[in-house]
């Protein structure tokens, strides 16, 4: 009975955030158009620039577009996940959080529900990116089954980013600080990863950072599934690492949320 209540608490928090998200049509359009711009403009432009045997060797993919599509999926998820905490800041400002906390609703369910909502949003956006990539001629070597596995990786990565966002948001009192902090995190994370550029083309110090960048752990299995096929060593290794980090960060988000002043 208690478990049922806990799950239903997560469901109501998630449902509320998702309904709020679906009402924000401009935001949805903006978050969908941005990755499409990356694919259509930068993807096509770079595909032309990199269409030579030497660069393709660096990329280890049929084209830059094939190389980049998994990176854009992860980038989309990164933004969605890292902005999950905005709902915590917003709910606090509207005193909704205080009201939630003064009900029998589980305090653990609140961050978990918000992370679940971010994961659903991330998957919706990645499906749009996937369809766009398919229309632009990206071939998915592992087919529909591979796409399902991609969505599992996306869910794990999104839950990690949303957990970080929520853990950081619990003590932030205004939107401006939150957005400044998230913008400060997202760009360096993206540009020091293997998402957009091949690691072989990086200088030594950047290569070192890229190897340890959490984004790389999500990009590599996705790129393997899109451009190479079922390389189970890469897939299992990445899955175990992402599962481990997802559990750690989820626990961290719950811990910081419960420890917060309200």
């Amino acid at each position, binding site marked *: 009975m208690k478990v049922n*209540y806990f799950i*239903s*608490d997560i469901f*109501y*928090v998630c*449902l*509320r*955030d*998702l*309904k*709020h998200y679906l*009402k924000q049509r401009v935001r949805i359009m903006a978050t969908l158009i941005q990755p499409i711009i990356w694919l259509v403009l930068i993807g096509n432009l770079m595909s032309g620039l990199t269409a030579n045997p030497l660069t393709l060797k660096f990329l280890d993919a049929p084209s830059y577009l094939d190389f980049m599509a998994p990176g854009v999926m992860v980038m989309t998820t990164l933004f969605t996940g890292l902005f999950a905490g905005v709902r915590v800041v917003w709910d*606090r400002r*509207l*005193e*909704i959080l*205080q*009201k*939630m*906390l*003064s*009900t*029998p*609703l589980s*305090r653990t369910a609140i961050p978990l529900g918000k992370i679940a909502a971010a994961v659903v949003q991330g998957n919706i956006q990645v499906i749009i990116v996937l369809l766009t990539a398919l229309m632009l001629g990206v071939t998915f070597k592992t087919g529909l089954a591979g796409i399902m596995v991609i969505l599992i990786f996306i869910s794990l990565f999104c839950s990690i980013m949303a957990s970080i966002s929520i853990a950081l948001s619990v003590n932030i009192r205004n939107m401006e600080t939150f957005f400044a902090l998230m913008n400060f995190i997202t760009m360096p994370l993206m540009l020091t990863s293997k998402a957009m550029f091949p690691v072989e083309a990086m200088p030594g110090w950047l290569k070192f950072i890229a190897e340890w960048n959490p984004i790389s752990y999500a990009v590599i299995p996705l790129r393997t599934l899109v451009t190479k096929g079922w390389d189970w060593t890469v897939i299992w290794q990445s899955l175990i690492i992402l599962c481990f980090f997802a559990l750690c960060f989820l626990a961290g988000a719950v811990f910081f949320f419960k420890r917060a*002043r*309200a």
Partner: protein
Amino acid sequence: MEVLQLKNVTLTINDNHILHNINIDFWNGYVHAVSGPNGAGKSTLASTIMGLEGYREIQGDIIYQGENINDRSVDERARLGITMAWQDPARYEGLTIKDFLMASAKIKNEDNIRDVLASLSMNPQQYLKRALDKTLSGGERKKIELASILVNEARLVLLDEPDSGIDVESLERIFESIRLLKKRGTTVILITHSLAVLQQADHAFLMCSGEIIDKGEKEKIVKYFENKCIPCPHKNIPDEWEPAVGK
């Protein structure tokens, strides 16, 4: 028997004593009213009891059922059985009324929620699927807030200005709900400056400038309303009274 005791509670914000040396006993199963003029510190007192953010750094002790709850967070206090209805209910944009009440309920049962809505003269058929957003009037939101308190089944309920934004007909329903809470054995603390709400209490406290300046039967405190509040420190006590507590 006391369910909640405040002992020498002082709340200081930016060097201002918002609450000063508050000593109150709230008895189990009674309807208490904390009354006084605007700015007396009534809502602050409710927020302090609930342990809301910004109201936790107090001097003195808050004892709930024999346990000092000074260090308990809002949700811990909620789990102990304390809850609060805000003067201005929060809008849960996104949820339907049914979802909101299910999330607020201690026992998640739709029939129970229907009964509570009906008791507040809100047709469950009409309201359960409605979105909890700006399409609801202030009075409707207030009643939904009260419904969330009723399904919560808390042991101690703080109702901050339960009559604000409520029409005369609905006010009677709110009063019925207060009587229902009392019948269930719930301790109710009404935060009010309304004579009509004060009349619902068994026992009342009078606050002014962050202090409890009198307490007693509601009839005694009602007299305060007959002597219009004069905005000076504690001059609004009728001459023939001796303050029971405070100064």
